[in-house]
């Protein structure tokens, strides 16, 4: 099965950050998220994680959430991929 995590994650970030179509295509592994984008406050991150859970059908435990996985697009992608692999 082809892994569509990258695509789905870009779509979720587009919805949460209100990006124009295609803008998320420019994200790379180093693109900064939490701590880099002022609009991504704790409420927005909570919403982002809930949306990832719903659309990728995974459950994220509170103690799995740390600064590293949220800091960059690459970190979030790696985390999400590993959660999907477990599921």
């Amino acid at each position, binding site marked *: 099965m082809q892994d569509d995590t990258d695509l789905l994650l870009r779509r979720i970030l*587009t*919805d*949460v*950050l*209100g990006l124009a179509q295609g803008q998320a295509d420019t994200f790379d592994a180093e693109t900064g998220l939490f701590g880099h*984008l002022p*609009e*991504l*406050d*704790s*409420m*927005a*991150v*909570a*919403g*982002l*994680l*809930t*949306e990832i859970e719903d659309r990728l059908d995974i459950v994220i435990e*509170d103690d799995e*959430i*740390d*600064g590293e996985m949220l800091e960059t697009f690459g970190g979030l992608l790696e985390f999400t991929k590993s959660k999907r692999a477990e599921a």
Partner: protein
Amino acid sequence: MTPASWPCPLPAGGFVDEHALSFDRNRKTRLLIVPALFDEGNKLRRLTVETMRRLDSAGIDCILPDLPGCNESLQQLDRQVPTAWRSAMDAAAKQFRATHVLGIRGGCMFTPDGLPTWHYAPVKAASILRQMLRARILASREAGREESREDLAKRAREQGIELAGYPLSPEFWREFEPTIATDTARLIEQAEIGGSGLWLRAEPGEDPDQADALAAILTWGATE
């Protein structure tokens, strides 16, 4: 669009004035809108009001009352319970002689009975609280404090809690947590509106196409 006030019943008896936004020209079709709750209420405010403008142009009166303790309300949020919100929306429907009702997201749990009703993207209370708890845990962690969901939920049930700036009493929490919207309303799903739900946005936004779509569904349904 004019500000209006309406007598909102108090749980202990008596009334207090609450605020509403209204497009009221004494027309035949009159829609009461129960707004989305907490943070989602802010994020969906523009869409709600833009939808009202379109309904007004289509010949429909619409009224957006505040829930007690929310928005412009002078009542304390931490004195509120869901039963009082339900009574408030019942009273608003009578006061404004509503003929139809729209609930938005968490507001769907507080739409009055007995009128033709739409529920736009309803969400249950447990999901709202789960997300607010998660935000609180993240904010605390950033500040170097570890908090667990179980401890916070226990404290919320016993002593009340402040989540994302919203103080909730233990009575509110216990009554609210199991609440879900009734399934007798006509459901409007996001797929019918197009695009993604504006409640997902990190910052409040707006989308004229979504307001057009929502107003079209309501206009068609209310005047058919």
